[in-house]
């Protein structure tokens, strides 16, 4: 497909500098000429650009605005007259759409879920979440603190969470490596926390501004000791919004760490999307502050059938809230005896885990209902997979399974995706990493081994044409 594209190239030479200066403008205005030319090629109205110029240059004099307009029009007219192959017409939008990144969507989902505290250290590509939060801090009453390092970031968030407010942090590979001890602390103290992990290619500093899905198994295994965690990986901004809310819900309900994993491509890209459905938000409060639950005999880590102990907000009632990173008793004081240790591990892990597993939604199934070919993926490849299925469906019985709730690995109770996979002739797992981490996880969790892998690890997102090329090479 790429070959076809390059065999019949369509180019239009636009003399940007000449057009910029011929109308009395300067060389810098070549940029404006170029924007005008693009609008001309696409057959769009120039007024849109004029409006942008007016608002962007509102502090400049009228002459500057006019000279920019002249430059824009020069590019617009040139492309309109000279691009004989440009036969585009603009389809009117069916309605208003939103323009936002998945970072924005995750931040707004977190805010809608009641997040009151966000501490992080700037790191591409996760920084957008903190910027969005900071922009909304005053309006929603959120404290956004830029910590001195990622270790401080996660520990601050845990402090705020312990003290009674919903708290979150966000980072990327190396920053998360620093947070790992804090993750284990969250687990031991049963302090809820949501961690947004926006991946970029590693190891170490890697390709800081590029994309990769290389940290799934790292997030899954991070932290010393054994404890439950949940991992979500949205495939688009709407899933990011809703999963941020669900991350808080699960984190608060079971007092565990929950991850929202994205990557640079998904996190930082601006998307046009339909409005989000806010009716599905969870809206459950799990903290206590009344004297009835939090009176003098209160025990922070009390044994219960579900393994979840009522979590009181310290300072608001007469009971004391005590917790420890050492193994502890029901009150939260340090212990070393075998019986309490076993009961505590059972409480944190084995009692909670079956309940957490029930919260996990099955993968999204799309395409032919009895597919011969199934594409499997997670997180940011959602749009790619869907478009590929739409195109390949014309020739093949093809479908996709997209996982956005990854761990605990979805059970087959709600939807038996394993029988779909077993019934297919060809299964292809597409991942933006070198080793097929999700395919390995699926094999570990279900025993199903994916037939073939398509991996990309050059730091660039999959392009549809390239992916279709790879796909057809495998399915004929």
């Amino acid at each position, binding site marked *: 497909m790429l070959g076809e594209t390059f065999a019949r190239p369509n180019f239009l030479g636009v003399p940007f500098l000449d057009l910029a200066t011929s109308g009395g403008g300067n060389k810098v205005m070549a940029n404006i000429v170029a924007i005008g030319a693009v609008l001309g090629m696409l057959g769009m109205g120039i007024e849109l650009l004029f409006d942008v110029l007016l608002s962007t240059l509102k502090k400049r004099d009228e002459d500057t605005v006019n000279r920019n307009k002249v430059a824009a029009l020069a590019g617009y007219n040139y492309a309109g007259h000279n691009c004989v192959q440009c036969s585009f017409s603009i389809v009117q939008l069916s309605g208003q759409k939103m323009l936002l990144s998945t970072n924005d969507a995750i931040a707004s989902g977190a805010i809608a879920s009641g997040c009151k505290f966000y501490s992080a250290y700037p790191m591409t590509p996760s920084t957008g979440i903190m910027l969005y939060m900071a922009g909304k801090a005053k309006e929603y009453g959120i404290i956004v603190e830029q910590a001195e390092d990622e270790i*401080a970031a996660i520990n601050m968030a845990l402090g*705020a*969470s312990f003290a009674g407010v919903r708290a979150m942090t966000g980072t990327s590979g190396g920053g998360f490596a620093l947070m790992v001890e*804090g993750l284990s602390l969250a687990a031991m103290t049963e302090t809820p926390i949501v961690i947004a992990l926006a991946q970029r290619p590693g190891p170490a500093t890697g390709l800081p501004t590029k994309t990769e899905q290389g940290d799934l198994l790292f997030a899954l295994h991070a932290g010393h000791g054994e404890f439950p965690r949940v991992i979500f990986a949205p495939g688009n901004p709407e899933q990011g919004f809703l999963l941020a809310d669900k991350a808080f819900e699960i984190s608060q309900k079971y007092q565990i760490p929950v991850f929202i994993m994205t990557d640079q491509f998904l996190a930082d890209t601006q998307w046009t999307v339909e409005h989000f459905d806010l009716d599905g938000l969870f*809206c459950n409060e799990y903290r206590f502050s009344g004297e009835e639950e939090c009176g003098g005999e209160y025990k922070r880590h009390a044994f219960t059938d579900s393994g979840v102990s009522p979590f009181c907000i*310290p300072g608001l009632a007469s009971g004391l809230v005590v917790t420890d990173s050492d193994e502890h008793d029901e009150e939260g004081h340090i212990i070393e005896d075998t019986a309490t240790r076993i009961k505590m591990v059972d409480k944190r892990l084995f009692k909670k885990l079956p309940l957490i597993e029930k919260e996990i939604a099955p993968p999204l199934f799309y395409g032919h209902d009895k597919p011969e070919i199934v594409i499997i993926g997670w997180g940011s490849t959602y749009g790619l997979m869907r478009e590929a299925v739409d195109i390949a469906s014309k020739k093949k019985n093809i479908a996709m399974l997209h996982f956005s709730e990854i761990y605990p690995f979805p059970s087959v109770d709600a939807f038996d995706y394993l029988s779909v996979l077993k019934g297919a002739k060809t299964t292809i797992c597409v991942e933006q990493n070198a080793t097929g981490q999700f395919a390995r996880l699926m094999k570990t969790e279900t025993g199903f081994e994916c037939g073939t892998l398509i991996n990309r690890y050059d730091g660039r997102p999959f392009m549809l044409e390239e992916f279709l090329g790879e796909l057809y090479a495998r399915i004929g």
Partner: protein
Amino acid sequence: MPVLDDYKGQVPAWCPGCGNFAILKAFKEALVELGVEPRQLAIVSGIGQAGKFPHYTRCNTFNGLHGRSLPVATGIKLANHEMLVMAIGGDGDGYGEGGNHLIHAMRRNIGVKVFVHDNQIYGLTKGQASPTSMEGMVTKNQPFGVLSEQFNPMATAVALDCSFVARGYAGDPEHLKGLIISAISHKGFSLVDILQPCVSFNKINTYEWYRQRVYRLGPDHDPEDRVSAFARALEWGERIPIGVIYRNNRRTFEERVTVIQDKPLVKQIIPFRDLKEKMKETLKEHY
């Protein structure tokens, strides 16, 4: 009003003769004198003999990771600044593992009270050098003696314009109690370094060693004079001053965080229904 019994915790697992006992006693007396109820207090501690401190009294407790008590304490204070929040740990916890956090907590001037039980040795791990061990001190792990210069927390704090800098001594508990009261009463970040003999592992800085050197700062010392405070902070060796070395009235972090000027964050929870409506409006900004 609270009484001493309200602060009665578990029986300490410290060595007999440990300087920590005197610190614990002074601490409880100070809180009772100030009329602080255990429920109003949150202590964050790290790892080390001093890290077990909150279990030996009664208070809201977060006994977290080695060196990380200050970020946790900062989070608690920001979420609920009506609480009295303290960070308690040893010299390894506060000056070694947690050094970076100490610098930034001083910069923020967050209203957290830090008490460092400074015994100039690692007690929990049985006798390795700490950041405040004196140069040349021989341990099993430093057979050639400590090669690095001793960390000076007081001079560092004065240099960073820390808003309350004091040094106490476990061998002078009455004086120490006064310092604890001053540190708690001070608005803003307080660092109190407490010289604490470790009878098991530090055979150099003993009660006798301190007794010969420690002296109380008198009324001739003006803790608001930063230059003379710095001179006092540098004093170590033949004479070691205890008392309030330096203090200022910098605005606290809580006073500068816009969103908590009316009430603490924890008392500003927006009902979910309102939040949903508000978010609908916010999302319209993206059209």
